[in-house]
């Protein structure tokens, strides 16, 4: 069982995410690549103009699930360091809601791990987004996370990559 590494940065924050600093921080002399994902607030959703977003989380569980993602990356990709930082509270158009950075000796592993991290975060981390429009607000549709169907049999682990 792989674990997230002490040099990883797994965080929920209500402040502006320091994207550039995080991208620098994951990078070490043995790395040849840093892949980053910058998820940012779009000014439209389903054809409506978005004014701003609000994010909330089940914080203790969200951090646990983000750490599980980092641990999975270390166990399944040849990478060095991982940063996964998600913002909470009110976010304005153009601000970063989630920033992921993965360093590795070679680019393929960095790209693949970064992609896996954001795709998995969107499906499994308990964070919710409310979209505010000029004429109202809605909770984003979202995805139903995979959960064990019954307590009687041991929970199947998600297939590894």
């Amino acid at each position: 069982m792989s674990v997230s590494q002490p040099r990883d940065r797994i965080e929920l924050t209500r402040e502006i995410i320091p994207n550039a600093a995080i991208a620098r921080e994951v990078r070490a002399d043995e790395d040849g690549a840093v892949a980053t994902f910058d998820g940012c607030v779009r000014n439209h959703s389903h054809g409506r103009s978005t004014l701003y977003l609000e994010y909330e989380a089940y914080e203790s569980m969200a951090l646990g699930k983000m750490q599980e993602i980092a641990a999975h990356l270390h166990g399944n990709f040849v990478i060095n360091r991982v940063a996964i930082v998600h913002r909470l509270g009110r976010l304005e158009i153009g601000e970063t809601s989630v920033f992921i950075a993965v360093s590795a000796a070679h680019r393929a592993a960095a790209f693949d791990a970064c992609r896996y991290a954001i795709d998995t975060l969107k499906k499994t981390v308990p964070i919710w987004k409310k979209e505010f429009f000029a004429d109202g607000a809605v909770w984003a549709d979202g995805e139903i996370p995979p959960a064990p169907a019954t307590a009687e049999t041991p929970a199947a682990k998600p297939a590894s990559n």
Partner: protein
Amino acid sequence: MTVKVLYFGRLRELCGSSEESVEVRNGSRIEDLFALCAAARPELGRFRPSLVAARNCEFAAWDTALSSGDEVGFLPPVSGG
């Protein structure tokens, strides 16, 4: 025994609070707890098909047995990122 129930997103708004303590019978499962919560707020029940349950910060099946002091979240579809 007493368990803590957490509500998030649209459920938090619907319930008017983010957490509550609920007294359940020994041997209760998560689905029994949900039924109890939904009995107090009928609108909650219609969300059941789209919810997943979490017990002590792990996704849990609806038939999971509860222990005193458990923290249970009824989680709407997630939309982080």
